């Protein structure tokens, strides 16, 4: 059951990812990306990693996608020629890049054995849940957490100063 679900989700993720790059309309690409992100989130959920799944939806499907759509609308890409690489070596470069990528993937897969010849070690109970992450963030990582909040606050103040004409 779990296996079938995982395969279905994977097919959906890969299919919608292909659609992201094959669509001519950038807004359709963005919408396909939403489907990719949701299917990835569900895949994470089926692996028992609820926190990552939720973050995936909130951060990527929520915030990042809104940003993408904004950029697409502001730049008004629809009426332009799609981005084109020019130059003599672009086919050679492209083939070389694909070859390097395939080599990398096959090397990594053969190093661990395809589909993991070595069974993965069982995770400790409660690993990756919101409870465990929250506990860790507010105990072991509380100092970096607070440092990050100072950083974000300062960046926000700075963005306001730099972006606003008159304060």
């Amino acid at each position: 059951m779990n296996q079938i679900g995982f395969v279905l989700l994977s097919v959906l993720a890969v299919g919608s990812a292909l659609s992201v790059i094959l669509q001519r309309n950038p807004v359709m690409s963005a919408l396909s990306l939403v489907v990719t992100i949701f299917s990835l989130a569900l895949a994470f959920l089926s692996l028992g990693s609820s926190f990552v799944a939720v973050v995936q939806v909130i951060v990527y499907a929520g915030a990042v996608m809104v940003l993408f759509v904004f950029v697409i609308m502001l730049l008004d890409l629809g009426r332009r020629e799609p981005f084109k690489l020019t130059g003599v070596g672009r086919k050679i470069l492209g083939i070389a890049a694909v070859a390097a990528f395939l080599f990398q993937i096959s090397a990594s897969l053969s190093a661990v054995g395809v589909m993991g010849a070595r069974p993965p070690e069982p995770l400790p109970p409660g690993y990756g849940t919101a409870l465990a992450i929250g506990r860790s963030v507010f105990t072991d990582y509380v100092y970096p957490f607070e440092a990050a909040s100072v950083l974000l606050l300062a960046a926000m103040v700075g963005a306001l100063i730099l972006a606003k004409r008159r304060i």
Partner: protein
Amino acid sequence: MTGYAQLDLAASVGQILPELVATAAFLLAVVVDLVSRRRKEAVCAVVLAGCIAGLVLSLAQLKAGQSLIFAGMAAADPLAAILKAVVFLATGLVALFSLGSPEIRMSGRGEYYSLLLVVAVGACFMASAMNFVMVYLATELVTVTSCILVAHAKDDRRASEAALKYILFGAAASGVMIYGISLLYGATGTLSLTGVSRALVSGQVPGLVAVLGVVFVLAGIGYKIAAVPFHFWCPDVYEGAPTPITAFLSIVPEAAGFGLLIRVYMLGFGERMGQGWAAAASLDWPSLLAVVSALTMTLGNLGALHQTNLKRLMAYSSIAHAGYILMGFVALSKTGLNAMIIYIIVYLFMNLGVFAVLIGLSRRLASDQIASFRGLGGRAKFPAFAMTVFLFSLTGIPPLAGFTGKFYLFAAVIDAKIYWLAIVGALNSVVSLYYYVRIIKAMYIEAGETEGGPIQLPALYTALLVALVVPTVVLGIFWGPLAGMTEASLRFLF
């Protein structure tokens, strides 16, 4: 390990009082900025109070022993305490400088002062980080906030260009550093500096990964201290930024960067050997740093020779000084680290002094060009005299503080029997005399426009110059107490 006591979370809070007070002052400053009528003065007062409280609390930590706080994320030890004190002292002085600066006044905003405090807090994080998560967050905090400060005069095209260069170089340096950190994490399974050191010593880390990690982390730290080859941003940013920010960048990120260098390389990539320290797993980073040090001071000094803009000249001069300070680290000895700390403190006074003269006179000078200093010796007697003292001190001429600093640095290098580096350093000091004296020559010997009449320095700047000249002279004659204090702050490491 060097006997760090691990404190629990509740007890840890007591060890970060300087940072807490500074952060509280920052938040208060933001609120005061919204409600106060005389916003700039009020915000500056809050920020100054924060700096003074931070300075006092940091000095109080000097004798507090050493402990790991917040689950090993940071350390509370005398080395961190002394660097925090330097950071707060410099931040307070720069906040005072900025009060009368026309460049800051024009933009007329209070946020400027509160962001100074944020950089100071980030510098404190840098000086005390014991975990790569903190190393990265602290450097980002300092970089991002410094960049906002540089860009703060946003109508000034040069400042915007400088800010863009600063953030691009910073992003690249951070990227390289975090890549190095990720390699080290992958190979060691830990982000704590002491854990990385243990793993390196045990030999479980593949050689190439260790070398790449150690070199890549240097990119992030080298960017902060403006060491060659990560110094390219320095001249443009120094020239384009408002002068008080240039003064700030020349000391606060630099002091914190050296603190981080000591911590990451000695505790993270080094191991204790009897009374001293050595590179872990025969990774020869001390030699690498020796070469970086020699290149940094040579390129800095050669670059400064032909500059006509004083701020650009000071940028190359600060690159050269970063090279001198690195020289102390290469020795990996107590005398070497002691020399670094002494030099950073001395450098604070003399370098801020030069900028104080520049800011104090900025209303009356045509430009930042050295040519506009012509004939200043007759028109502004005290500022010209103070400038001469600072410049001679930067050269390292006795009996000024710069000589004390250089004396300690050279003694440490010769002590460690790295003679070639000492010779390179000595030759570089001779070269530096040429361009510092060019400014003095312009002030006293070359004739300038005489119709300008005498220049009266604002009282604030006269007081500041006195406050900076006195330590520059006194520490050149009577440095015992300072050297004693810095040495005591390093005792826990050796």
